[in-house]
């Protein structure tokens, strides 16, 4: 960038003279050219906090694990290029074009399944039309099952368990609790909310036929001012537990309303932590809020992991390591690059398929080759302030691991019939 600016101020003759010099220099340092990775997620607007937090974690992983240790592939640095999509599919298309025109070949994206779906189909089309110029999609968070089932693609890899896998574990956990006889399901009225509702009902019927579904409610996403009327229904339904896939403000408001009504029942969630949620729930949420996720949480499983997280906290005092899977994804990506000695998406994709990897927490990860879905241990944690070493939102509260399953037990069948590119 600096070089470019300076060259503009130079005179034309000087510039042409220099051009030859730069070019000859360039060929000699080409081995040191950075590996550039695009990060397309919301960095402004309503969902900015989650996107920015993800960016910091990716940047930290790149710097801490690779750049500070001399880079990858024999000395090349990793450069993260942030591109703001405001969590809108339209802006995603624009940023995708920009990434392509800047020669970026690997895209990290996580927030919103709607965006991930758009990106997935855009990339498939682009790759079909531009052989040799393919783009790789690293999905670290979008959990719509469709991405590794009906809509699966050779160019898409998912590093989080999808919604059905998570619900499988969650319903196992609920089924273990004999006191739960009546379950109330409430969620946002869109694809993910519907998947949570349908799958929960189906799995609970299978695992605990005696459990009665006493409510199955949908509300418009981000439109509800006050959840108290919904809670009134939950109370009168006599439910013993609530399942919800809500996130963001819809999650906080719902949990707060349930707690404020004096209802003392567990709430099983996907996203009820971090980004202000943990702090807002505070003491009222203790032993009531449960979360299914891929992170081990407290107690931290290894010294290495603890040091890694603490160092992140030191550098970013106002952020938490909310999505450890970003680190997993980057490490596996780099391992694939090293194995294939290439930064070409086709070579990386082949190396990633069926890769087995032991992460910093000591967990076994497997990237299933048939559908490009990660298989990893899943955990259910509870919101508490007891034995919390690494808290959330600097609140003293955090997630404590209560139940874990190994990767093998989280496997669910897929319906992916992948179109593999020929080379």
């Amino acid at each position, binding site marked *: 960038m600096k070089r470019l600016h300076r060259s503009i101020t130079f005179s034309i003759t000087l510039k042409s003279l220099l051009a030859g010099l730069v070019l000859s220099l360039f060929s000699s340092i080409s081995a040191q050219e950075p590996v550039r990775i695009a990060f397309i997620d919301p960095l402004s607007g*309503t969902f900015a*906090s989650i996107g920015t937090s993800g960016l910091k974690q990716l940047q930290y992983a790149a710097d801490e694990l690779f750049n500070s240790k001399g880079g990858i592939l024999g000395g090349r640095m990793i450069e993260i290029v942030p591109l703001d999509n405001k969590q809108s599919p339209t802006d995603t298309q624009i940023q995708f074009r920009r990434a392509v025109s800047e020669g970026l070949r690997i895209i990290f994206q996580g927030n919103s399944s709607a965006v991930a779906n758009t990106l997935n189909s855009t990339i498939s089309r682009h790759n079909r039309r531009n052989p040799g110029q393919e783009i790789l999609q690293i999905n670290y968070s979008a959990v719509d099952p469709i991405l590794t089932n009906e809509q699966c693609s050779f160019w898409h890899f998912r590093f989080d368990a999808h919604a059905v896998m998570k619900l499988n574990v969650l319903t196992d956990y609920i089924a273990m609790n004999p006191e739960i006889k009546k379950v109330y399901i409430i969620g946002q009225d869109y694809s993910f909310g519907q998947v949570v509702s349908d799958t929960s009902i189906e799995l609970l019927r299978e695992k605990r036929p005696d459990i009665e579904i006493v409510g199955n409610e949908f*509300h418009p996403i981000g*439109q509800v*001012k*006050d959840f108290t009327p*919904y809670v009134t229904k939950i109370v009168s339904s006599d439910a013993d537990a609530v399942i919800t896939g809500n996130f963001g403000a819809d999650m906080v408001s719902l949990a707060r309303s349930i707690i404020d009504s004096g209802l003392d029942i567990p709430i099983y969630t996907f996203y009820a932590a971090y980004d202000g949620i943990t702090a807002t729930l505070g003491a009222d949420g203790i032993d009531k809020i449960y979360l299914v996720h891929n992170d081990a949480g407290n107690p931290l499983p290894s010294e290495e992991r603890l040091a890694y997280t603490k160092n992140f906290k030191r550098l970013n005092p106002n952020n938490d390591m909310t999505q450890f899977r970003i680190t997993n994804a980057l490490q596996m990506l780099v391992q694939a690059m090293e194995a294939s000695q290439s930064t070409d998406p086709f070579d990386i994709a082949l190396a990633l398929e069926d890769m087995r990897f032991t992460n910093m927490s000591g967990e076994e990860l497997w990237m299933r080759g048939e559908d490009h879905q990660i298989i990893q241990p899943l955990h259910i944690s509870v919101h508490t302030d007891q034995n919390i070493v690494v808290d959330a*939102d600097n609140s003293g509260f955090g997630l404590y691991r209560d139940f874990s399953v190994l990767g093998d037990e989280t496997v669910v069948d897929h319906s992916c019939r992948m179109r593999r590119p020929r080379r």
Partner: protein
Amino acid sequence: MLEVFVFSTLNGLVTGLLLFMLASGLTLIFSMMGVLNFAHASFYMLGAYFAYSISLKLGFWAGLLIAPLLVGAFGALVERYALRRVHAHGHVAELVFTFGLAFLVEEAVQFFWGADTKNYQSPDLLNFPLFTLFGQEFSAYRGFMITISVGIFLALYYMLTRSRIGIIIQAAITHPHTVANLGHNVPLIFMAVFGVGTALAGVAGVIAGPVLTTFPGMAVVLGSIVFVIVVIGGLGSLGGAFVASLMIGLLQSYAIASNLGMPDLLNWLGLEFSRDHPLNDLWTLTLPQIAPVLPFLLLVLVLIFRPTGLAGKREE
């Protein structure tokens, strides 16, 4: 069934009265300046954030007193130094200005406070159940919300209809030139009304923040519904806004509580559709699912059948 009805009514009252605090300021400002203030809900959000910051240092009650004053002062400044200048260029310019201001405030809030949810809590003093009915608690804080809202309605109504200031304001709304000729400072009155209107929105933000959560999207969620109320109630009518607020609060609350839907209607009509019917989504629609949309449906109906709103007088 009775318990659901009782609690739905209470929930509806709380929401309705909260909406009224916003709508009252908006409708006053409209009747005065002839322009809908799109940034009105932003002042509500500012109230919540100011009070949150103050409550960290001085506690909730200080926030309740100081935050609305700050918001009101900010509102008055906006009127004096921005809106009044824009006013010279007509209503469209004013409309666009307030529209832009709403975006500006939202971005500013994210800039200063961050995008995540703020841990703004109700005071410990009110952290007890006021009463328990059918096993469900009604928190003292919600009782407090009702009291404050009703108190403000009564005070406002008294001030506008019985006091000298109120008479001058009412006169300034309909006959600004005459009032000016009588020696009153009409621009000052406008500024004061704008300040008080935004301060009311600030109060609403202060007391709603702990219950409805304080986050940068809180203005957007409430903004559109407040316009609906003002239009249904009749632009410029305080009484109309009051009735419309309660109506919408209760309507939403009852709609969520009910379990009725298209399947019941079809049953009653004796019709049946298979699950793969192309309009299956329509035939399975339930009232709770569309509850948050109902106010907008009501708005359309009111505009068709009674364009002036319930108590509106504007015909010109």
